[in-house]
């Protein structure tokens, strides 16, 4: 019969229309900003710098090795290395970045900086609400804005953060055993919280 196919299709739309009153599967709207989707652990938006302890300037894990700057595909990272050294996450004396800028108007959220970082210093953030009308000021994140605590990292990527902490603790123990006495001077350094603590 001519028109049968159309009727069949209309029945299907009707099923969806009335179904949306009873079935949550057919009513998929999530009313942002009041409600939000369930957070996905692996989600990534822009990079941030992890620091241990309470003071971001003292605890920044980044040692300004500039590997991420070199490997970043769109070259959106700008690092300046310090002249002096300070102890890093495992207690070695290292350089630190005096300047660390990420141009989020260029960043493509590819995560390659995270993969190449040998110090677990740069990780991916989930914050996406960065819309701004300030073209030149609002889109360059400097190291103060990028630095986020290890607790924050635990909050957004718990599994990955726990792995990183375990690795760092092991490394720290190893270097302490190797260095013996000199490690004592790092005893005052703030330790990252144990895995799982928020």
């Amino acid at each position, binding site marked *: 019969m001519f028109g049968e196919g159309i009727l069949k299709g209309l029945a299907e739309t009707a099923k969806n229309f009335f179904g949306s009153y009873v079935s949550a599967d057919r009513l998929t*709207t*999530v009313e*942002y900003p009041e409600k939000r989707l369930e957070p996905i652990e692996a989600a990534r938006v822009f990079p941030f710098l992890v620091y241990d302890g309470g003071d971001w300037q003292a605890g920044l894990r980044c040692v300004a090795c500039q590997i991420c700057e070199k490997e970043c595909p769109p070259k959106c990272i700008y690092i300046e290395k310090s002249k002096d050294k300070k102890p890093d996450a495992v207690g070695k004396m290292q350089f630190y970045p005096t300047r660390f800028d990420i141009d989020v108007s260029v*960043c*493509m959220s590819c995560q390659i900086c995270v993969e190449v970082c040998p110090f677990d210093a740069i990780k991916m953030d989930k914050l996406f609400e960065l819309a701004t*009308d300030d073209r030149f000021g609002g889109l360059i994140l400097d190291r103060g804005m990028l630095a986020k605590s290890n607790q924050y990292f635990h909050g957004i990527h718990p599994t990955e953060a726990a792995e990183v902490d375990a690795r760092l603790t092991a490394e720290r123990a190893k270097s302490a055993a190797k260095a013996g006495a000199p490690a004592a001077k790092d005893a005052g350094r703030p330790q990252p919280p144990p895995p799982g603590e928020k």
Partner: protein
Amino acid sequence: MAVDQDLKIELGKQGVFITTLQELYNWGRRNSVWPMQFGLACCAIEMIATTMARYDLARFGAEVFRPSPRQADMMIISGTVTKKMAPQVVRLYNQMAEPRYVIAMGACAISGGPFKQGYNVLKGIDRYIPVDVHIPGCPPRPEALLQAFITLQKKIDAQPLTGPGRPRFLDAAAQGEFPVPVPGEHDLEPAFNQGVWPLPVLQPGKKD
């Protein structure tokens, strides 16, 4: 004329609602921003996803995507603007009637993004037309577009109807037409519009 906010709230509790012309006017403008149906690249797919059931841009009064620039209030530059496309984008913007807004969605629209070093990629649409809201991200999540839209609504809300901060269409002296770049033998001419793109003095190599 400014109304005391406390007085207004107090009156509201008593069942008396007062408003100013400005608030009413901006309320109307803010809740009926119709975007232009205009997609450029990857971000356009996220823009389409935003209009679909899960994110539902319609909740903000912006579901009517108009194919014609004459009927649209907002242009979402969703994706890379190439040098070949830039004249057309500027022309479309010129064809839109005031009030008109521009959202630069995604890294490419803001600055050329990951494709910045390409010879045919325009390093940011704000070289030729004024942009109201920038959303970083590659591509931004649909929620990020919604948040940018809310930001734009706030911006509209805050616009006074008179005085120096007033919108362009209430300002007789404001620029309405923006010069359309011409594809030249090696590059677009001019490379950017001096009046629209206030370039900051940048000194890399200096400490912040």
